[in-house]
């Protein structure tokens, strides 16, 4: 005799998207930096931006700070970045 039970788990919903084209060179491009809003995250991303400029000749940085580390970046903030920068550095951390 078998006993049948149900799996209680799920998996994340997979979404398909076309990744942005990778630039052949970073020289002269504008970098976006997403600060997750935690303490000292602003210092960290600024240092990352500064170092990448030194290494790769990026022209400028645009630094935005998420209003909440607990939530995704607001849509208007993401759209602003998309309109003004060529690539973005983002991360999670505490």
């Amino acid at each position, binding site marked *: *005799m*078998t*006993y*049948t*039970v*149900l*799996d*209680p*788990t*799920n998996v*994340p*919903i*997979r*979404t398909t998207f076309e990744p942005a084209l990778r630039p052949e060179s970073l020289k002269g491009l504008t970098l976006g930096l997403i600060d997750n809003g935690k303490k000292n995250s602003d210092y960290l991303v600024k240092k990352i931006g500064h170092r990448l400029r030194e290494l790769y000749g990026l022209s400028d940085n645009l630094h935005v700070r998420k*209003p*909440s*580390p*607990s*939530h*995704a970046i607001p849509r208007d903030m993401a759209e602003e970045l998309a309109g003004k920068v060529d690539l973005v550095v983002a991360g999670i951390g*505490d």
Partner: protein
Amino acid sequence: MSPALMSHRIEVESAEQALETFYQNGWTDGLPVVPPTEEKVLMFLGAAGLGPDEILGSIPERNRIFTAEKVAVNAVMAGCLPEYFPVVVAAVRGISRPEFGLHGVSASTAGSGILMVVNGPVASACGLNNGQNLMAPGNRANATIGRAVRLVLYNLGGREFDRSTLGHPGKYTYCIGEQETGSWVPLHVMRGFKKETSTVTLFAAEGPNQIQNHVALKPENILNTIADRMRALGSFNMGGDCECAVIICPEHYETIVRDGWTKEGVREFLYENACRPLADLKRGGLNESPIEPGDEEKMVRTVSSPEHILLIMAGGGAGRFSACMPGWFSRHMSKAVTEPIGVTCAGGT
């Protein structure tokens, strides 16, 4: 005809083998679970008037959704009765509201529990405990409703995201009722609902900080003791804009209301007196600036408004022990929410 359930079926030889399989797959909270059969899950969905594919909530940051079927599976596992399921449904809807900030709440190293306060007729209908041993084992509704929500987070929300340093015993369950028969306005009415509406209030909170005062016979003295614990230096409330839950036990309540104090008055008093000098935060390194003249007199409040205190009357009839539960991180990341509980849950917001 029963609706089709989409969950993967697992064939085993017995209920006991099902239990061991669930343990081996990491699908429990460390305690035995009730094996979720199709029959049981359909009973739960019927009790709430829900189709299996109705979406009750989600964590968008993780691309995770919570269907009624999957929530029912986990509620069966938790040991709920079908009549508890509308409460579980409301709780899942509530924590999925953007203002609750479920992603951070359930991932944080801070490891808050999700305090659930059930108000209205459904609390007594489910036999929820609001008295002695308020937050202890022994009551099926308190134990399993809270447990169901946590199993949902583990099995549907992504257990791997929970990076809490110390954990929290309320992650087994943290579900209570409130005593609504006294002169005080119940929590859900203070939060804008009618008394006859059943609701569940969800709040990301520390564990209960028990506060004893068996000597004081004046309300102000009792409340000063509570305010003292609320202003703990090591809570997020100090230096952040956080809410705080306070449970007043019946013996303290009797002393307080004897002098005519309302909940509003108690909240106002706690708001004014749960504070400490800015110099204390600097001594604790929570503010890295040097101590300056005037810092001993500049007060930092536990909450930024009396309305940010969730005041509840509950607990056993003997013993002068109240409690406070500071909140998690900040109101801009998570706020307490109150979700109505439908007799049936179809078409909820």
